[in-house]
Structure formats: C-alpha cells, structure tokens
C-alpha cells in the first residue's frame, strides 16, 4: 500500500475562490443588462485600475523593479492608439493589441538603458523616461502637441453604429482585457518564471546563487508589464476619446494611485491589487468631494500601511485565515487510502 504523492496548486479556499471569481466575471459581463451608463463607466474604470495595479504589483512586488514611471506606458499605449487610428486608419479596437505589441518594441531599448540603474535609482530613472515620453509627445504636432486632441467622430462611430452599442463594446473589451491580464499573470507565476520570480522576491542573492538568471527574468517581467500597461492605457483613452500629454503621462493618475492601491491591498500577492482597487473606489466614491485632501489622506494611509502592515490588507487576511483565491502555491499532496484525502 504505497502513498501516491502529487503536487497541486489548488486548495479548498482557492477552489471556492476561483468559482466565486468566475461567477463574479459572469455577473459583470452581464452588467449592460443590469447597470446604467454611469455604472458601466465606473466599472470600466475599476477594471483599468485592477489591471494597472496588477501589472505594477508584478513588476514591484515580484520582480523587485520599483517603477514610479509606469505612466510612460499608459501614455505610450494611448498615443499609439490615437496615432494608429487617426494616421494609420486602423480600427480602434484592433489598435489596442497593436499598441501593446509596439510598446514592447519601445520597452526593450528603454530597459537596456535603465537597467543600468539599480534599486532606488532605477525608480527615478523610470520617471525620467516617462518625462521624456511626455515632452516628446508634446512636440508631435500631428497629435495635437501640448494641448492634445480628440478622436475624430468618424473613427468613433466606426467602432459601432449606436452610442449604446459602442459603450457596451468598450465595456466588454475592458472586462476581457483585465481578465486576460489576470490570467496571464497567474500563468506566468505558475511557470518556471514564476518560481524564479518568487525566489527573487524572497531573496535576490539566494535566487541568483541557485542559478536563477535574475536580469533576464526581470527583463521578461518589465517587457510583459509594458505590453499590458500600454494596452490598458490605450483602452482608457479610447473610452475618454480625448488625449493630452499631461493627462496621458500623469504621474498621479497612473502611478501614485496605482502604487497606493497595491500597497494598501497587499503587495506581492495577486489578490492585493483587487482588494486595493475596491478599497480605493469605495473611499473615492465617499470622499471625492474632498479633492486634494483625498489624495493627501491616501498618501498618509499608504505610509501607515507600509510601516505597520507591509503586506497590506490581503496580507493580514492571509495571516489570519490562510485564504488564497488564485491557485499559485505548489502543495505536496500525499494520497493515503486509509485516511482519505488529507
């Protein structure tokens, strides 16, 4: 009577979690049937932040690449969408993945340059890259220079004939993109890159001495993040229908908020950005009237969380209950027929 040994990703909490997630996605996909226009807009915005925060979390929480310049790729994706649609005549929805692919082509040489900076200096280096992108964008006169431009009506109506159908379509694309990005991250973390990433997250030196190619792994993550962030950026501005360098490369909107969301929700865990985004929007819906004070409070909350509970809200939940929604951790399961499945 030999005990069979298997390696599993899922446990009960994660099975329940995945079923709940699947149900939630189905419910959200049906939102056009039960929600109004404002609900759809708000939900699409939430998806965008879940995606952006998840990408930043992958970058900073797993690969240890703390970037404060991800607005570079939000803006790049957005500008590429406008350029492809207006100058290239490409249908806007197709321009989204194309913007992602083209951004990869930009991210590679950028990485070659800023990977020369380490740790803290890398962070500020990413910011400079974003500033360079913003300043270059404001020099491009066909894309409206410093004041930006709107997506021409002809292109907007080419998405779908009626305004309602357009909104539904963009809403579904937003949901699909975020779900796709989350799946991509889960698959990445379950692959050998994921093992390498978790080793790097826990101890970079130990990972390297165990044969992990740290630089290569980081580069892969940086490029994937650029790809996803650019697509989200393109979608955000397709929804806004108007672009300007200051809005597209805003450090507050696309980096400060994203960092606060991830830190408050729990950095280094997939669930963190989702929890963080929910908290962020709950706070925003109740405190939005406060304006700048709101941003100030968010900064204070993020600092307190970083000092007092560096693993964030989800970290507290994991410590307390051991929940895990996404099946990522490998567990050894020993099948013993006498006792049944442990």
């Amino acid at each position, binding site marked *: 009577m030999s005990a069979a040994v298997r390696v599993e990703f899922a446990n009960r909490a994660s099975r329940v979690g995945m079923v709940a997630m699947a149900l939630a996605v189905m419910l959200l996909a049906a939102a056009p049937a039960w929600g109004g226009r404002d609900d759809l807009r708000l939900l699409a915005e939430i998806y965008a932040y879940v995606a952006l925060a998840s990408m930043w979390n992958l970058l900073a929480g797993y690969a240890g690449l*703390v970037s404060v310049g991800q607005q570079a790729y939000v803006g790049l994706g957005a500008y590429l969408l406008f350029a492809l649609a207006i100058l290239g005549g490409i249908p806007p929805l197709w321009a989204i993945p194309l913007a992602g692919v083209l951004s990869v082509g930009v991210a590679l040489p950028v990485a070659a340059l800023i990977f020369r900076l380490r740790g803290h*200096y890398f*962070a500020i280096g990413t910011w400079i890259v974003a500033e360079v992108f913003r*300043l270059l964008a404001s020099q491009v006169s066909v894309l409206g220079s410093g004041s930006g431009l709107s997506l021409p009506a002809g292109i907007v109506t080419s998405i779908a004939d009626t305004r309602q159908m357009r909104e539904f379509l963009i809403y579904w694309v937003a949901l699909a993109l975020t779900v796709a990005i989350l799946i991509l991250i889960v698959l990445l973390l379950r692959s050998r890159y994921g093992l390498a990433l978790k080793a790097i997250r826990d101890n970079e030196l130990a990972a390297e001495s165990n044969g992990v190619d740290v630089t290569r792994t980081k580069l892969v993550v940086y490029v994937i993040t650029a790809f996803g962030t650019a697509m989200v950026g393109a979608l955000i501005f397709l929804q806004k229908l108007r672009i300007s360098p200051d809005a597209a490369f805003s450090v507050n909107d696309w980096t400060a908020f994203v960092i*606060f969301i991830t830190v408050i929700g729990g950095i280094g865990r997939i669930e963190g950005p989702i929890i963080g985004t929910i908290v962020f929007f709950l706070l925003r819906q109740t405190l939005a009237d406060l304006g700048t004070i709101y941003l100030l409070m968010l*900064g204070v909350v993020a*600092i307190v969380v970083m*000092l007092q509970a560096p693993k964030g809200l989800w970290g507290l939940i994991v410590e307390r209950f051991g929940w895990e929604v996404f099946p990522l951790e490998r567990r050894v399961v020993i099948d013993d027929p006498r006792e049944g499945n442990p």
Partner: protein
Amino acid sequence: MIDWANVILQGVLVGGLYAMFAAGLSLIFGVMRLVNIAHGDLIVLAAYLALVTTETLGVDPLTSLLIVVPLMAALGYALQRLVLNRTLGDDLLPPLLVTFGLSVIIQNGLLELFTADSRRLQAGALEVATFRLADGVFIGVLPLIQFVLAVLVIGALQLVFYRTALGRAFRATSDDPAVAQLVGLDNRHVFGLAMALSLAVGAIVGVLLAVRANFDPAIGPARLIFGFEAVIIGGLGSLWGTLAGGILLGVAQAIGAQLDPGWQVLAGHLAFLFVLAVRPQGLFPKVRG
C-alpha cells in the same frame, strides 16, 4: 558666437543650483543608501516657508534663510527619526514608497494651503543687476551669487565629510552600520543629522531658486529629477562630481532652450540618457550603487 557664450555661461550658473539639489540627495544616499523621492517637494516646501517668512516679517529672501534653513534642518531630523529610520533595511520598497507617499502629501498639502498659483520671491534690485564680463557677455549678479554659494556649500559639505567628527560618523555608518554601532555611534541619530544637513542644503537651494524662477506646489518632482540627473552624470558618491554633473545638465538645458524653448528640459534629459548609455558609472564615480 557671443550669443552662445552667454547661453553656456547661463547654463553653468544654473548648474550650480542643480548641483545643490544633487548634493542633498547624494549626501543621504551616501550615508544611509536612501533615495528620498520627496527631496524635490521638500525643496519646494522650503520655498513656501521663505515666502511666508518674507511676507510676514518683511525681510528679503536671503535673510529669510536664517529662519528657513534651521526650520528645514529640524524638520529633516524629525522626519528621519520618526518616519524614515523605520523604513531602512535590506528591502528597497519601504523607503521608496514612504518617500513617494510623502511627496504626494507635501504636494497636495501645499496645493491646499497656497493654491496652484505660481509664486516668486522678490529680491528687489538684485534681481536685475548685471555686470559686463567682456563685450556683449553679461553676468547677472544674482546667478553669480547663487553659483558661488553653490560652490561654497559643496566645498563645506566636502569639509564636513572628510575633516570633522560628524563626517567621520557619516562615513563610518556608510561603510558598516553594524560596526559603527558597536563602537558607540547611535545610527538613528547619525541618520537624523544627515537628513537635517541634506534638508538644510535643500532649504538654501529652494530659496535661491524661488528668487530666480516661479514655483508652484507641483514643481517638486522636476527638481528631484534634475538633482538626480546631476548625481548620475557626476558619478555616485562624489560631491565635486555632482557639481560637474549639475553644470553639464545646466549647459545642456541652456543649449536646448536656445534651439527651441520646448527643448529646454528635454535636452537635459537626453544628455542624462546619453551619459547613462555611454558612461553609466558617471563622470567621476566613487562608490557603486
């Protein structure tokens, strides 16, 4: 030709200010391996403190330094002891995120208190005084004072670092914090003093810059970036290197601005990226980051 001489001269003089941003950053990085993302916003905070001081006491900006510099130093010490010391360790994330949060807090706090309007410190006749260096080449008295002050500040920092007991403590904690503690240094106090010194320098440059150019609550990150670029161009850990880096950055910006006003800041960034590409260790490297 004369035009270009003027342009380059202006660039060199502004470079002194950039070097002072950089010296404050370089100092705390050297002592405790901390990059303060809020450094630029703290410089802007110093400018607003000077604004309040000059308006309430009716003194000129240079005199306001007597109040603003000690105030910023005290703030730096308190900030380090109460908040930043708790973030130091092997992990890069906490200091970065906490100083980033601090940057957002300062920006929005200033926005709330002083609105988004551009402000400027008035220095009276000094602002427009110039003297002739050669035919057609003029130097503003104010930029010259600023440059000389920058060289003096960096020289003084160099002396503090290599000729005083405080500097010895800085270098000791920088080399090995654990051993420094064993021989009786209180690292938390030493780090506090380093941050106080960094913000004292930041206060000087904040006030000087506020006389020279408009400022508003959102301008801090740009200050941080210029200082950071000067540090990297000059080479990590070298104070005189940061002066060279600041000057190079100032000249690049002045030349860019001369070609097209929209290119001023961009030219500085491109010069930085160029140095990063061809000589990533900077012009005068001392320590590896």
